[in-house]
C-alpha cells in the first residue's frame, strides 16, 4: 500500500479515535445529565461542578470527528448526514439545550433554576437517544424496507443512554464523596442490568441484521481470535458489577468502575471497527471511494500531527488542575 493509499486509512483511524474519545468523554457528562433528576438541588450543583470545566472540550471531539468526516470523506459526510437528517437535528437541539442550561442555571433568577435543570436533563436525554438511534441506523448501513431495521435502531437508542448513565454514575463515584457517592453507587447498579441486556441483544442482532458483519465474525479461525473481544467485555462488566457491592469502591478504588467502563467502550469500538472496515458506510462506500484528494489529506495530516499532541497535553493539564473530588465551582 503506497502512502497515498494509506492516507484514507490513517484518517479513518483518526476519525474513529475522535469519535471514541467523544463517546467516552461526552458520554460521562451526558450520563451525569441523565442522572440530574435523581439528585437533590444541592447535589445538582456538585453534579454540574464535576463536569463544568470539561464539557466544552468534550464536545469539541464531536466537532473534530464530524470535521474529519467532512474534510477527509466528503462523499460519506453528505450521504450519512442526509440519511440521518432528523435525528441529527434532534441531537443538535438536545446539545444546544443542555449546553446553554449549564450556564444559564447559575446565572438566571433563582426561581428559574429548576426550569434550566429540567432542560439540562431533557437535552441530555434527547441527545443520547438520537445518538443511539443514529448509531443503530449507521451499523445497519441505513437499511430500509423491513420491520427489523427500526426495531434494531430503537433498541440501540435505548441502550446508549443507559450506557451513558452507567458511565456518568461511575464518574460520580470517582468525583464525589459521602451521601452523593453512595447514591452514585446505587445509580450505577440500577443502570448496569439494562446496559448488559442491551449489549447482549445488540451483539446478537448485529450479525443478524448485516450479512457483511456475520461473515466477518463467524468464520473459523477468525472467530476464535475475535472471541477475545466479547469475553473481555463481559469480564470487565462483571468485575465492575462485583466491585459496586464492595465498600472499597467508595474508598481507594473509586476510580476502578470508571476505568473498567472505559475499557468496555473501547472494546465495543474495536468490535465495531472490525465489523465495518474498510467501509465508511457499510456495503455502500469504502474509505477510498469516499476520500478527498491525497494532496488535501496531506495538508491536514501535517496540522494534525502538530496539534493533536498539543491538544492531548493541555487536556491532560486541565484534568490535572481539576483532579480529585469535585468542589463548588467559582468564577475567578
Amino acid at each position: 500500500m503506497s502512502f497515498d493509499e494509506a492516507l484514507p486509512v490513517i484518517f479513518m483511524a483518526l476519525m474513529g479515535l475522535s469519535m471514541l474519545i467523544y463517546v467516552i468523554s461526552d458520554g460521562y457528562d451526558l450520563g451525569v445529565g441523565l442522572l440530574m433528576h435523581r439528585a437533590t438541588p444541592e447535589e445538582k450543583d456538585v453534579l454540574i461542578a464535576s463536569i463544568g470545566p470539561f464539557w466544552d472540550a468534550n464536545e469539541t471531539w464531536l466537532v473534530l470527528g464530524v470535521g474529519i468526516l467532512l474534510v477527509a470523506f466528503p462523499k460519506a459526510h453528505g450521504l450519512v448526514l442526509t440519511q440521518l437528517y432528523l435525528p441529527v437535528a434532534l441531537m443538535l437541539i438536545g446539545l444546544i439545550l443542555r449546553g446553554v442550561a449549564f450556564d444559564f442555571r447559575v446565572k438566571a433568577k433563582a426561581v428559574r433554576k429548576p426550569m434550566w435543570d429540567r432542560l439540562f436533563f431533557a437535552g441530555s436525554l434527547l441527545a443520547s437517544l438520537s445518538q443511539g438511534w443514529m448509531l443503530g441506523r449507521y451499523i445497519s448501513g441505513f437499511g430500509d424496507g423491513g420491520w427489523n431495521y427500526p426495531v434494531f435502531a430503537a433498541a440501540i437508542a435505548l441502550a446508549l443512554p443507559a450506557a451513558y448513565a452507567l458511565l456518568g454514575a461511575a464518574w460520580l463515584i470517582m468525583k464525589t464523596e459521602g451521601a452523593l457517592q453512595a447514591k452514585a453507587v446505587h445509580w450505577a447498579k440500577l443502570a448496569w442490568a439494562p446496559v448488559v441486556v442491551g449489549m447482549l441483544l445488540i451483539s446478537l442482532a448485529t450479525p443478524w441484521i448485516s450479512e457483511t458483519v456475520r461473515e466477518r465474525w463467524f468464520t473459523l479461525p477468525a472467530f476464535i481470535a475475535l472471541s477475545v473481544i466479547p469475553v473481555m467485555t463481559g469480564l470487565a462488566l462483571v468485575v465492575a458489577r462485583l466491585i459496586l457491592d464492595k465498600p472499597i469502591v467508595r474508598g481507594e478504588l473509586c476510580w476502578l468502575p470508571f476505568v473498567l467502563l472505559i475499557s468496555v467502550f473501547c472494546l465495543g469500538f474495536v468490535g465495531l471497527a472490525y465489523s465495518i472496515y474498510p467501509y465508511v458506510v457499510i456495503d455502500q462506500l469504502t474509505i477510498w471511494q469516499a476520500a478527498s484528494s491525497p494532496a488535501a489529506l496531506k495538508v491536514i495530516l501535517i496540522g494534525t500531527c502538530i496539534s493533536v499532541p498539543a491538544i492531548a497535553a493541555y487536556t491532560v493539564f486541565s484534568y490535572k488542575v481539576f483532579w480529585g473530588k469535585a468542589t463548588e465551582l467559582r468564577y475567578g
Partner: protein
Amino acid sequence: MDALLLARAQFAANVTFHILFPTITIALGWFLLFMRWRWLKTRDPAWLGAYRFWTKVFALSFALGVVSGITMSFQFGTNWPGFMEKTGNVSGPLLGYEVLTAFFLEAGFLGIMLFGHGRVSERVHMMATFFVAFGTTMSAFWILVLNSWMQTPAGHEVIDGVFHVKSWAEVLFNPSFPYRFAHMLLASALTCAFLMAGLSAWQLLRGQSERSAPKVLRVGLTVAAALIPVQIFVGDLHGLNTLEHQPQKVAAMEGVWETQRGAPLLLFAWPDEATRSNRFEIGIPKMASFILTHDFDGEIKGLNDFPDVHPPVATVFWSFRVMVGVGMLMLATSWAAWFLARRAGWAPERIPRLALWALAGMTFSGWIATVAGWWVTEIGRQPFVVYGLLRTADVAATTVPSPMIALTLTMYMVVYVALIFAYVTVLKYMAEKPEDVLQPDLVEAAGAKAAAALVAGGKA
C-alpha cells in the same frame, strides 16, 4: 416553499444566531486579559470585580457560540452535501485547521480560565486567558479565510467539477480576506465595546456595581469612540474591494439597475425585481459614484448587466442601509457620550443621565450592524456559493423532503428565539444584581486570595 429556499433559510437562521456570540467573545477575550492585567498591576478590587462579571458574560456567550457552532458543522452536510464534495480540497483543510488550532485551544483552556483561579498560579491563569483569547481570534482567522475564498476564490483549479488547490498562499490571502478579516475584528471589538459600555451604563442608572461599572464604562466607551471611525474607513476599503471583484453585489447594495455615470446615493427606495426599477426613490445626486469611484461621474455597473447572476436586490439593499445607519448612530452616540463623560471627569454621578440612557439603549447595537453586514455579504453572493463558479442550487441536498426541512427549521427557530430572549434577560438580571451578592468574598478576601493562589500555584 421549495427545498432550496428552506435549506437556505435554515442555514441563514443558524449562522445569524451563531455569529451573535463569537462577535462578542472574540473581542471580550482580549478585554478580559486587559482587566486581569489591570487587577494584577493595580490590585484595585474594582478590576477583579469587572473581570469576574465579564467572565460570566464570556462563559454564557461562549456556550451559546459552541452549541450553535456544532450545529453549523453538521448543517454543512445536512444542507449542502455538494459543497464539501466539490470544494472539500480547499474548505476541508481550512475547517480542519480551525478545529485543531483554535476550537480545541479555546475549549481546552476555558475550564482553567473560568474556574481555575486559586488552583493554578496567577501566571498560568493569565496564560490560559491569553490562549482562550488567541484561540477565538484564530478561529475567526480560519473561518474568514474560507468565507473570503468563497467570495473571491483564488489559488485553485477546477478539474472535472472538483476544486483542487494550486497555491495555499493565494487561497489564504485571497483578494477580499484582509479587508473582511479587519472589518470583522473591528465589528467584534465595537460590538463588545458597546455591550460593555451599555451594560455598565445600565448598572450606573440602577445604582449597582459602583466600583467596577465606571471603569468598564470608560474602557468600553473609549474603545468604541476610537474604533468606530477606523471601522468606517475599513468598511469603505472593503466596499471598494467588493466593487472590483463582485460588482453585482455593489449594484444591489446601491440599488443601481442600469449601468450609469454619476449614480445617486439612495437614502430610501423600494427595489422591485418585477419591474426592475426602484420605487419611492430619494437620493443624493452623484454621491454613490463619488463614494465608490472617488469621482462624481464614475461609472457604476448596473444589475441589468448581470441577468440571472445577481442577488435578491431588496434584502441586500436594505441590509446595507441598516448596517450603515446603525454604524452612524454608533459614531454619534459614542463620540457625544465620550465627550460628555470626559467633561464630567469620568465621575459616574456627573455624567448626564441622558448619555447613560443613550448608551444603555445601544447595548446590542453591534449585533444589529454585524448581522446586517453579514446579510449584505452573504446574500449578496447569491446565487453562487463559490462566487462565479458554483451555484448554491447545485450543492443543496436533493434527497431531503421539504416538509422535513420546514419542521426542523421551525424547531431551530423556536429554540434560537427563546435563547436570544433568555440571553438578553439574564444579562440584564446579572447587571442588576448588587455587586456584593455577586462576589461575597470580594472585599475582604481579594488580596488574601490572590496571595494564596500564588502559593497554591507553585504546588499545582
